[in-house]
């Protein structure tokens, strides 16, 4: 531990971008392209990474993660494709209804929770609907490095077959399309039979599809670690909340996009910290009183300590009142 632990945000850095293109692909899916506002290059990334897009929806902050579908080697433009979800929390609707070319937005550095296993002798991609997006980047990466892959892509109808034409034209031998409205389904049993050792399967699609693949693979004797799947959980900075700092004799409000630690620092309170990532224990703070629910996002507290203590660098609170010993 140095004498100068650095006061910086420990999360994914943000990039100021301008929307450079909005391309409606079909009735449900629109592609959005971004360029950096400062003229610099985007960071390159590993295929399967996503970026989190910040949206200001009439005063409500939304953060939605979207897979980067652009070629990872393309550092001039980032591209995402968003499927409009009329029943969702509003993020995709905001994108479809409000975002136009020239708009200024903020997105995060890429984060990858669904990366290629570079040891694999062969990669099998199973996509359902909008789940095609991470595979667009993966295919670009593997084509560049001469990796072996094949895609099995299930879509509702020809009209809603996002990127089907592009994929089947560019890679006729490796792309298989299955149209729901023609009762075409991926023959998973056949697909899982006869693959060489060292094959990895990646599935991105509805929850049901993911479960079906895991179960079928297990029944066919595949190790579960050979099946990779991604389910998006939207990151929460969370709602703003008020905290009474008993020692400092202040009541502060923690904004939506700052941590409790950052809010204290902003208010001039000298709170201890080190890793700013929930793992080192340095910022551990006693809870004096609380009426509400804690959102513990750290890797430090034991289960019995939760609620009696809080880690301000990553954890939050929802409720009527919170008093802590700072």
């Amino acid at each position, binding site marked *: 531990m140095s004498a100068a632990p650095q006061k910086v945000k420990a999360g994914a850095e943000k990039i100021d971008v301008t929307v450079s293109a909005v391309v409606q692909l079909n009735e449900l899916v629109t592609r959005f392209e971004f360029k950096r506002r400062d003229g610099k290059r985007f960071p390159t990334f590993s295929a399967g990474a996503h970026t989190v897009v910040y949206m200001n929806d009439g005063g409500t902050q939304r953060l939605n993660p979207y897979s980067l579908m652009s070629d990872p080697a393309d550092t001039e433009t980032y591209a995402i494709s968003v499927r409009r979800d009329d029943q969702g929390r509003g993020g995709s609707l905001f994108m479809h209804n409000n975002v136009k070319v020239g708009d200024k937005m903020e997105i995060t550095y890429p984060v990858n929770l669904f990366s290629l296993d570079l040891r694999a002798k062969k990669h099998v991609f199973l996509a359902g609907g909008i789940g095609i997006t991470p595979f667009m980047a993966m295919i670009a990466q593997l084509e560049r490095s001469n990796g072996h892959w094949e895609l099995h892509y299930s879509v509702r109808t020809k009209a809603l077959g996002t990127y089907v034409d592009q994929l089947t034209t560019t890679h006729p031998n490796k792309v298989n399309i299955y149209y729901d409205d023609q009762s075409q389904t991926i023959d998973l049993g056949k697909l899982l039979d006869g693959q060489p050792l060292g094959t990895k399967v990646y599935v991105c699609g509805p929850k049901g599809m993911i479960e079906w693949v895991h179960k079928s693979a297990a029944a*066919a004797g595949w190790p579960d670690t050979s099946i990779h799947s991604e389910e998006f959980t939207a990151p929460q900075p969370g709602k703003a909340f008020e905290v009474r700092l008993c020692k400092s004799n202040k009541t502060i409000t923690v904004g939506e996009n700052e941590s409790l630690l950052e809010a204290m620092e902003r208010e001039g309170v000298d709170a201890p910290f080190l890793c700013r990532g929930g793992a080192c224990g340095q910022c551990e703070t006693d809870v004096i009183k609380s009426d509400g629910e804690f959102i513990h996002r750290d890797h430090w507290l034991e289960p019995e300590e939760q609620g009696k203590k809080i880690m301000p660098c990553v954890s939050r609170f929802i409720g009527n009142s919170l008093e802590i010993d700072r």
Partner: protein
Amino acid sequence: MSKFQFPESIQSRPVYGTLEPRPGKYHLIIADAEGAEAILDLSEQDATLMANAHIIYIPKGSKLGDRLKALRPAQYYEGPSYQAAASRIERVLASAHMGTQIYLTGTEGLIGQAMRDCINAGLPHTAIQTEHRGSVARRMQCVHCKGITEDVITDPFECSHCGLNLFVRDHYSRRLAAFQGVCIDAEDPGNVPEKVELYK
């Protein structure tokens, strides 16, 4: 029953289980010496497994080969040593498919070497079942000359390649299929403690 209860140790030390039948279209079973007993136990849990099984057995003096043959596996091989069997194993793994179940049983040396070869062929180690039976002798790598000394049963022991006196560590490498041996008298040359049998 020749199962040994290994004392609890550090995180890199392999821990063995008990073989159980798992779904798969092909079962590759590799064993030496008393490992045959575990195969017989496995077959009792599910006799249908053998119709799609390939048993590779290194008897090392045991007489259990005939009982394994009597299980009527789809393929059966008996060999004098792992080294002799190695090219066959490599060939089998080269054309094996995902959905192959692997069962390794017998000495740590046999299990370790077979595990290493299966991992190199593309299987995750967590998917490979292991059960220890028989001798508790270890394969040791001399960290100084990199030579492997087989069947080590005492601590300390002499490296069979460079002759240094080495103490036995529990630190284990799957890639090398060996435990680590380190010079015991570097700081006091010649002062080599009495050999003690492992686990005594």
